[in-house]
């Protein structure tokens, strides 16, 4: 017998921020070797695209898993307001002691959005540039998905 259908809703958001990849646990030479150009002392920036995917029952009254206005407002408040046109290293407390790679950014954004009340956060996928992307689906996921 077939398993039930599952529906997920994906929404893409954009923000621009600067960062510098540098670890206090490494020497100057090691930082330079490991992070290359990304270790340049004054940092650089990206236009990040963040894909937020949620799941849940589709409400028969609205046809929706979650009202997009609610999701947009939640993401605005918990992510965009904190990250857009900021320095990830300087302006985001989580990155004072953690290297703001896009891997860590996925985890940070997942933590910030996982309590969205109207649906279950399934995963965060971030395009740092058009050529590379990263995904995180929480600690207990069976694996990240595309």
């Amino acid at each position: 017998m077939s398993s039930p259908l599952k529906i997920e809703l994906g929404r893409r958001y954009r923000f621009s921020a600067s960062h510098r990849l540098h670890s206090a646990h490494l020497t100057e030479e090691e930082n330079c070797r490991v992070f290359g150009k990304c270790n340049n002392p004054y940092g650089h920036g990206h236009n990040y695209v963040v894909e937020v995917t949620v799941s849940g029952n589709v409400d028969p009254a609205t046809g929706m898993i979650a009202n997009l206005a609610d999701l947009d407002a939640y993401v605005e408040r918990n992510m965009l307001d904190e990250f857009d046109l900021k320095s990830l290293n300087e302006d985001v407390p989580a990155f004072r002691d953690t290297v703001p790679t896009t891997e860590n950014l996925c985890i940070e954004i997942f933590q910030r959005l996982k309590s969205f009340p109207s649906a279950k956060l399934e995963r965060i996928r971030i395009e740092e540039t058009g050529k590379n992307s990263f995904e995180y689906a929480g600690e207990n996921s069976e694996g990240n998905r595309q």
Partner: protein
Amino acid sequence: MILLTRKIEFSASHFYNNPSLSPEENRRIFGKCNNPHGHGHNYTLEVTVEGEPDPVTGMVLDLKELKDILEREVMQRMDHRHLNYEVPELTGQIPTCENISRVIWLLLEPKITQGKLHRVRLYESPDLFADCFRNGANAPGNS
């Protein structure tokens, strides 16, 4: 297992309104999407089929056949149509991305006999999509 994805685009109009709610509630919940004259989108549909390549043809399924199925089941039903009025499968449902993707899944699943339908992803715009798949199947887009 191989995943094979075909993409098509169709354009359709819709609006969101639940007749069992008051006009005020409809406006509050659906906002601009409640405009009674409707509005439209260019939808992009990605249909992913899973299976093993046939040893003779090297194919999971004949792409031409998949193209014909999508033409018959989706394009002819939905392209340049008003989703509220012209698609019987959506009658009584709000034509959101979530509901349309489920309707498309239910239309396609029995028609795909070579390989198995793995995922339906419907983009309403580049920034909004719904995925429909069988729960418990492997993650969407993944083997």
